[in-house]
């Protein structure tokens, strides 16, 4: 087996995904370890170009108009060493009427001092759809710093859905910065689930500007902070077109000495638009806790069960 394949198998084995899925010719994939491209496979209509730079990798993805990619595209960004900086510059264009779903794994299994920087620009064309699930698997040491940044344009009638999951291993530091502009009749759904412990630091800043009529946007954050972990969520929805609709939702469970802040901002510039927000921050619900304890779970196990439920993929 080549060294590349060994690394790919090693990374995937940490994610609960079978690396043999990559053998399927209908599954496009891109595997990057540190700043090296280890594997790449495209499917008809999908062009992927990955260029290694001095300090990172530049990835250009183009999905041609009307192309429907049947199986989820696999992306894997790994750092097998315990130290280093990984920088990925992504430029993604989904042309009109094209549909794609991506499954990204970010795996830093032994990180002691690792930075993962993602700088993405995404354009989702008219009536196109882009569905993205990013799952992080971090080391238990807490030595990861993750900076995901994305600038998104959601075209008329397009759908943009992202889900971000970081519940395995320690967060370390995460600083999410997403901004999206949404045209008429488009739909945007951004969802993050993150579990922090020890001195983890979580910052989420998501902004969606609903600039087109009937544009819809939902920003959801579900976070748990235990021990001395800190979370700050600044989610903002603005609506400047008639009949734009949106909701900002933030749930944070705070245990021990955890600290959580939620600053939902809703900004409406058209009387026919409608935006709501909801933030619930606090310890686990007492009745939930007592229910599980009445089945014999210790208080700690009950808290774990409640948090795992809240943070599970719905």
């Amino acid at each position: 087996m080549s060294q590349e394949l060994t690394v790919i198998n090693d990374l995937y084995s940490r994610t609960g995904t079978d690396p043999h899925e990559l053998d399927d010719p209908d599954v496009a994939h891109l595997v990057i370890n540190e700043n090296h491209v280890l594997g790449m496979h495209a499917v008809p209509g999908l062009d992927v170009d990955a260029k290694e730079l001095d300090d990172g990798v530049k990835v250009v993805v183009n999905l041609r108009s009307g192309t429907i990619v049947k199986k989820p595209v696999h992306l894997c960004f790994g750092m097998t060493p315990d130290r280093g900086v990984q920088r990925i510059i992504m430029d993604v264009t989904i042309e009109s009427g094209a549909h794609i779903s991506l499954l990204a794994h970010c795996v830093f299994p032994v990180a002691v001092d690792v930075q993962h920087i993602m700088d993405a620009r995404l354009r989702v064309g008219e009536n196109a759809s882009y569905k993205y699930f990013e799952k992080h698997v971090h080391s238990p040491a807490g030595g990861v710093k993750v900076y995901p940044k994305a600038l998104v344009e959601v075209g008329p009638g397009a759908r943009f859905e992202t889900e971000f999951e970081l519940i395995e291993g320690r967060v370390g530091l995460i600083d999410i910065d997403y901004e999206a502009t949404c045209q008429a009749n488009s739909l945007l759904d951004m969802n993050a689930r993150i579990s922090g412990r020890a001195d983890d630091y979580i910052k989420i800043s998501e902004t969606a500007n609903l600039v087109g009529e009937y544009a819809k946007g939902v920003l959801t954050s579900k976070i748990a902070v235990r021990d001395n972990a800190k979370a700050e969520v600044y989610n903002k929805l603005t609506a400047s077109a008639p009949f734009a609709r949106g909701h900002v939702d933030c749930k944070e469970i705070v245990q021990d000495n955890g600290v959580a802040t939620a600053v939902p901002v809703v900004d409406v510039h058209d009387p026919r638009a409608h935006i709501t927000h909801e933030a619930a921050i606090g310890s686990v619900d007492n009745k939930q806790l007592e229910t599980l304890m009445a089945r014999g779970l210790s208080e700690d196990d009950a808290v774990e069960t409640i948090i795992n439920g809240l943070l599970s993929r719905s």
Partner: protein
Amino acid sequence: MGILAVENLKLSLGGRQILNDVSIDFWDGHVHAVVGPNGAGKSTLAATIIGLSGYADIEGDILFEGQSIRELSIDERARKGITLGWQEPARFEGLPIRTFINASANGDKVDAMAILEQVGLDPDDYGNRAVDKTLSGGERKKVELASILAMKPKVALLDEPDSGIDIESIERIFDAVKLLKEQGTTVILITHSLAVLNQAEHAFLMCHGKVVDKGSVARIRHYFEDKCIPCDHKNVPELYNIEGQA
């Protein structure tokens, strides 16, 4: 002495005496009912036995298998084998029903899917749904019962087990009570419903924070039917919101 006993239990909440010298001995392996009108103190008694927060400041004692459990936490009581099925069970965002049932089994391997079937919920429809707001009150009650079947407790306090349950599935709830008894669980039905009382073998009648009578179901049923409860507080007719009567 029975498996569970409360002795001269007194509890005040918000400056009012809610439990007023309650003594009950629950015999092992039986299905008991604690009946009485709304506000009698039945749910308070159940909360005190399991040890919910806010119900700890008691006088008297609670004995399980002959030993006092009044200083034990909820989970310690549960690990001895006592549990409570809530009148209004909690909802958990995102927690799959299957996970909830398995967690309740405390490390024992159980067939969550088969247990769902036992309480009248189709496992294919419900196994992966969350124990959340999208469940109706009746569905949530059935999930609560399923988790108790999985736990196999020695004593199960079931607070108003028929509330929110439609007529068609009420028999499934009663079947589950029989199943618990067959598993060896002592069942305590907390109820103001005649239909539920009829599932018991033995009953205690509570009124105004006191046990005012005990005996066979036939004997206690008689009070229900006559709307006559012999206790020393002044009866307020509206209190007798008793189901199952013409």
